[in-house]
């Protein structure tokens, strides 16, 4: 059993399934010669780290409580984890079920049984290798991918079919995060040639779900990137977005709320914010699936809006290294943050508000300048133009 958290709830609640596949024993140098895809599939150190980070984040959220409905935040009801690393994985002393087809199927079944009610918010997060047949059809490669020469794709998840058939699940809100590559499986008839496993069959009933976005870490045909031994930027963006940075406050009561339809765009912006500070190749978050709007689309009412990340640079970029930068709250005239001259853009976090940015150049190489800096969720990325005196 790798149900790492479970709390009986009568009303709304998150039911989370996290799958991380970092070990592919039948792939890479161990692959059969004739299987090109398997030969090119190597172990991923970031996938287990990502899966554990996501799991721990939900466990932290669970520890913060939350109460169903009543205008308060939605609580975590259960967290299920299947994870494959080279060595058996443990979480809080518990050995984690491996992300083989058998392990994932068992985890999926438990998850499905728990989230099969209208008030559930079902969340599936997958991190590992993936292949796309088309924009809808995604294959998720599990640990025992290519273990059978006759049916190499048997131990992969047919995500397109699984997503479609999740219509039969009663959970009105279903969120799918695919932290995986979407390189196209080449060759004609790929979908019919490849026999992957659909994790649930369709009951033939009209869909009950109202929101079911699929948030892909990358665009169709593109690679998704991990950081060796560390959680992916995408997963960080997902945590930030779910944590409150996808929130809007456009309703009459000005309360910050996270809606399902706001998650994808927010993850995209946060992903770019995270990637800006690293040398990771660009990834464009892409969103497919159904998302309706309305109150049934509500994901969270975070009790506190997290600080908003910002990154401020200059045009030309080298000028920022000479600048003394100050962010001031215009309502109080108090300085909220300051940075002395140093290379690179200024990155930090501040409470959501509008600030006045002042760039002062002590050496006089550039003209001092001021600009507004709207530090609003999901994040602020701003380049301030400066000129020579």
């Amino acid at each position, binding site marked *: 059993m790798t149900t790492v958290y479970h709390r009986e709830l009568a009303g709304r609640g998150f039911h989370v399934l996290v799958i991380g596949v970092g070990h592919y024993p039948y792939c890479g140098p161990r692959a059969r010669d004739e299987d090109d895809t398997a030969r090119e599939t190597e172990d991923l150190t970031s996938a287990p780290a990502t899966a554990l980070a996501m799991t721990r984040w939900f466990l932290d959220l669970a520890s913060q409580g939350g109460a169903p409905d009543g205008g308060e935040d939605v609580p975590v009801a259960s967290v299920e984890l299947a994870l494959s690393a080279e060595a058996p994985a443990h979480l809080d002393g518990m050995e984690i079920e491996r992300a083989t087809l058998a392990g994932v199927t068992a985890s999926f079944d438990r998850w499905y049984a728990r989230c099969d009610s209208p008030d559930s918010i079902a969340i599936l997060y997958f991190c590992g290798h993936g292949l796309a047949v088309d924009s809808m059809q995604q294959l998720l490669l599990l640990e025992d991918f290519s273990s059978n020469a006759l049916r190499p794709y048997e131990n992969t998840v047919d995500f397109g*079919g699984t997503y479609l058939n999740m*219509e039969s699940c009663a959970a009105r809100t279903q969120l799918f995060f695919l932290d995986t590559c979407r390189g196209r499986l080449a060759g004609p008839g790929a979908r019919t040639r490849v026999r992957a496993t659909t994790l649930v069959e369709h009951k033939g009933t009209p869909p009950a779900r109202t929101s079911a976005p699929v948030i892909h870490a990358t665009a169709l045909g593109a690679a998704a990137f991990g950081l060796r031994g560390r959680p992916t930027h995408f997963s960080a963006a997902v945590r930030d977005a779910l944590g409150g940075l996808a929130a809007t406050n456009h309703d009459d009561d000005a309360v910050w709320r996270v809606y399902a339809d706001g998650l994808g765009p927010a993850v995209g912006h946060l992903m770019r914010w995270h990637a800006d500070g690293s040398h990771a190749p660009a990834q464009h978050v892409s969103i497919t699936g*159904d998302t309706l709007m*309305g109150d049934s689309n509500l994901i969270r009412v975070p009790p506190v809006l997290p600080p908003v990340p910002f990154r401020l640079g200059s045009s030309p970029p080298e000028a920022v290294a000479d600048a003394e930068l100050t962010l001031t709250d215009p309502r109080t005239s108090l300085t909220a943050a300051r940075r002395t001259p140093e290379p690179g853009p200024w990155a930090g976090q501040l409470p959501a508000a509008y600030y006045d940015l002042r760039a002062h150049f002590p050496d006089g190489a550039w003209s001092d300048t001021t600009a507004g800096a*709207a530090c*609003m969720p999901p994040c602020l990325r701003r380049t301030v133009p400066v000129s020579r005196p």
Partner: protein
Amino acid sequence: MSAADPRPRADAVVVPLRCAGSGAPASAVVAAVEVFDDTPTGIASTVLRADDEVPLVVPGGRRYHLRVWAPSGEHAWYELTAPETGPAPPVTLRLPPDEEPPPELLGPDAGPSSADLAFWTPASGGWQQVAAPETLTLPRPDGPGGVLRLAPAHGGRPAQAGVVLALRAGAHAAVTALPPDGDLVLGRLRGTSQPMAVLGRGTARTLLGFLDGGDLRCARAVAETVLDAGPDRPADHLAALAAGYYLVRHGDDRADAWVAGLEERLPRCADVPLLRARLLARAPGTDPAVLTRALVRAAALGLPVVAAGLRELVLALRREEQRGDFATAAALRAAEERLAAALPGLLTSIATTRPDRRAGPAALAALAALPPGGPAEHRPGGGLEPLGRLTVVPVPDAGRLRYGGAAAVTVLPPYRRLAVAKASTQEADAHDNAPAETWASPDGSIRCTRRSVSGARVEIVVESPAEPADGDLVLVRVGGAEAGKPAEDFLVLLGEDASGLRFGAVRIPFDGETVTTSLVGGLRHSSELTGADAGTVERSVTHTVGPGLASWGDLAVALGTGHVIARAVVRGLRAAGS
């Protein structure tokens, strides 16, 4: 984001918002705007229009922060302070940098290039070419005549949706669903030889871009501007279609009525039955057969114009397959093949040379090697090297490039009516035994039977096995040079008789020996009729027999008594009665 402006207050002032340099046609919606007060709370939403002002109503004497969202997902912040009272000066905003017109559109490097263009339309069980292919040297987009105006040659209206453009440059090709109106930019995907036809800037592209990026809140702000214009607005059919996608995805209560409006406006557009199917799928108690019919009709109408529509079609057909409905299996296989060969973009584009051909292994391999980055026309990091532009216009007023031109007039073999003269004394027998000649179009989409009937008339019966829709009609040209009479046009409206057969028939007086008959174009729809057709309608109704007569009456009722076509129908019905 709330689409409504803040509640009017005594201290409200109007701040006109302008957008400059968007490169879109004037008044087109190019961005969505969130308006925050200083606290910071979102208090309103609005849009930006190209080279036009949008009034923003806010309490005066305060500072506001405006977040301008482009469909690429990029945004820019602006700050404004509203005056205490009185009219505020206009505030000019620009789109985020990635939404500025690509420099290649305006720069000197966008030199001429050539491409082969051909146009195809769905026919029964396949496709037919509607104009001879042309090799065009595309003009520079910024030069004189840089926009090729693309028009249906017979002046039809947007029922022409369904026509696809086959574009070929070198070894690469693409088939793109033509929108019912709007600009297309022709180009190559940056860094490749893959030709593309992508949607030009405009309200439809803005809305579809937000929908594609999953930003339903910004999509709502744009869609509301389209919905405000009403379902009968004659222009910007593509924006109306995009609004349909928004309403259906949004689960909006107005979706059903809006899709019904689209069914009237765009009867031959594959997207529309697809949207209907989506609504049916959600409605409790839907007869599965009805849903299947809508999907099969969508598949039969060719390619959905909107790329998301092809994904919707595949998803819906897979759903039917999962439920054990195998009637849609062939449609699913075909749609899946197209999806696997789909090029990035907001319009449906397939990497193939002709719509009736599968993408070959080489094309699929090339597709797998395409640079990623999402839809080329609006994603940062995507990119198109423009070659030229096409504008799809509803009337051929400035057509330099037309589809469905002279080649679409099909002259049938002459029909000799000698048998009537011999049988004229035995009228009843003659009617039953007159020699009939049936001609079928090469693609089988239209079958035309001619025979002599009493009163020195020729009966022309038109059928279409292609599941014709209500309001479908065929333009028949009748005339014989040897008779010394000018040719006359007749619109044969198809109707359903008591046995469920759908056909149209006219009986035309003709005293010569040889009847020359031509079919002008293929199946058309009554929604294409304009005031210029009134004379032809009146003449046609006068000579209509069979179920088409009731269909003309239904059409007149639907159009309303004041409509020029309805009046022509009434005149024709009176003449027929007399």
